[in-house]
């Protein structure tokens, strides 16, 4: 049985990845999960300088999901390179570094600093709804998206994944723009912008007012967008949004994702990534699927 998948020339042992921001740089979850068993670990977004993130409360539970407005707190690229990359290189899984920034230059500088590092793929978060500048501004306008992709590509030695925002009218258009800019792969979806109001305190449940909605609640939107993107462009797609078990993951794969990422699912069960992987293998066995690549995008 083959579970290897190819993301822009990088061969993952299996299609199961972690979703940026939900898994740190892997250390905490490594108590539960042998990271070597994962297709790839995707790190929390890292920027050129340390970011403090947003005030608390940063999260709120919602029906079948959660809202977060962490605001991309991170130690900055230097400490990250010094500490997190050496940690991750101990494992067999591929390493994907998620990059965030306020300006185009921010992204390019981080990408440049990472270009000599033992990192397999770079994922550009141009879709974070929780920071004022940058982030989502690039992810909601096709021209801006194409431009930043082109710019980042100039500095990158690793293949570039552009992470798309679902908060757009036409995801296919965005997928095409990123592809036109030279993206090597796409990942989607980031969170849907949402809000929760605490009716007793008559105020917002997260301090940032709005936050990003994630978890099983958003899965149907995510599957639809992966399907639309996969049918619009030819580069590989990493699907995510509400994946908790293997059935969820297989929906994304059949819709056209070459790999999948587990995000909020980790909070529900620290073993979620491994459960997803095991379930995919069981499904393949039961249905006599020799190669996972047979079913990528099989539903049309």
């Amino acid at each position: 049985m083959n579970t290897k998948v190819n993301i822009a020339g990088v061969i993952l042992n299996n299609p199961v990845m972690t979703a940026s921001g939900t898994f740190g740089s892997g250390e905490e979850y490594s108590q539960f999960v042998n990271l070597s068993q994962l297709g790839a670990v995707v790190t929390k977004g890292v920027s050129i300088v340390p970011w403090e993130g947003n005030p608390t409360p940063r999260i709120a539970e919602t029906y079948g999901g959660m809202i977060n407005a962490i605001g991309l707190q991170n130690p900055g690229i230097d400490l990250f390179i010094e500490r997190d990359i050496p940690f991750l290189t101990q494992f067999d899984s591929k390493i994907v570094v998620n990059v965030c920034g306020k300006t185009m230059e921010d992204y390019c500088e981080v990408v440049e600093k990472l270009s000599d590092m033992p990192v397999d793929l770079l994922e550009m978060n141009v879709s974070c709804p929780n920071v004022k500048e940058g982030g989502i501004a690039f992810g909601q306008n096709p021209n801006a998206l194409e431009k930043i992709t082109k710019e980042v590509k100039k500095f990158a030695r690793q293949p570039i994944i552009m992470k798309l925002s679902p908060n757009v009218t036409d995801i296919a258009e965005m997928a095409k723009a990123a592809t036109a800019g030279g993206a090597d792969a796409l990942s989607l979806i980031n969170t849907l912008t949402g809000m929760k109001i605490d009716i007793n305190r008559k105020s917002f449940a997260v301090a940032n007012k709005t936050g990003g909605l994630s978890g099983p609640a958003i899965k149907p939107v995510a599957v639809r967008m992966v399907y639309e993107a996969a049918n619009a462009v030819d580069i590989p797609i990493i699907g995510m949004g509400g994946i908790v078990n293997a059935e969820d993951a297989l929906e994304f794969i059949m819709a056209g994702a070459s790999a999948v990422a587990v995000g909020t699912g980790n909070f529900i069960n620290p073993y979620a990534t491994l459960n997803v992987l095991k379930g995919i293998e069981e499904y393949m066995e039961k249905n006599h699927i020799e190669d996972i690549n047979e079913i990528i995008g099989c539903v049309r």
Partner: protein
Amino acid sequence: MEQKFREKAVIIRQEEIATGIFSMWLKTEKIAKAARAGQFIAVYCNDGSRLLPRPISICEIDKDDDAVRIVYRVAGKGTDEISFMRTSMQLDVMGPLGNGFPIKEKKALLIGGGIGIPPLLQLAKDLKCETQIAAGYKEQLFLNEEFKKVGNLYIATEDGEHGTEGNVMDAVKRNDLDAEIIYACGPTPMLKAVKEYAKEKNIEAWLSLEEKMACGIGACLSCVCKSKHKDAHTNVNNKRVCKEGPVFRAEEVELS
């Protein structure tokens, strides 16, 4: 790194010890063995519409019987769901989480407010020196008999029906409680008062904080508090309540 476990715990028994306050003993495979006073567990709901675990402090640990006790208040839908569970039912839990209270050989004052009182019980049992406990209740008392067995208990209630009338700091001041170390758990205004009191009196103080959590193990950065020093982890003045906490040196954290 200390071990954390995710298990299916079995409910040994559950009872309502005051209106809306429940005490539950859970049989665990590994958590009880590893647990310390001041740590907490993450309790998952069975209802699929509620995904995130509820952080609940460990109130008592029975290492012989591999059991932990939690005491919680029904605050919303998740704790409401859990309050309906009965003996021999199973509950997904993860733990032990967080750092716990540092056990020091000093004359101690434990200050608890409301649902912040329970985590002090195991602490009081573990302390070796003179132990004074100040507990502030709204109205109804709970765990008071158990605290009496492990230290000198001073009570405050809002209406003054039991102990000092007022809040727990009124009881501390009224009884002029002196100590070399303070451990406190309770609502933020109480913690602020404790911090100030400790500073004034120049007493070492440790505070147990609360914040909304998602992962419970330090990965998601949901639960940070403002800290005096840069956090080694993220290089900014934030610390993770679930990982570097929930117990912090009073001077180390900004309470807001």
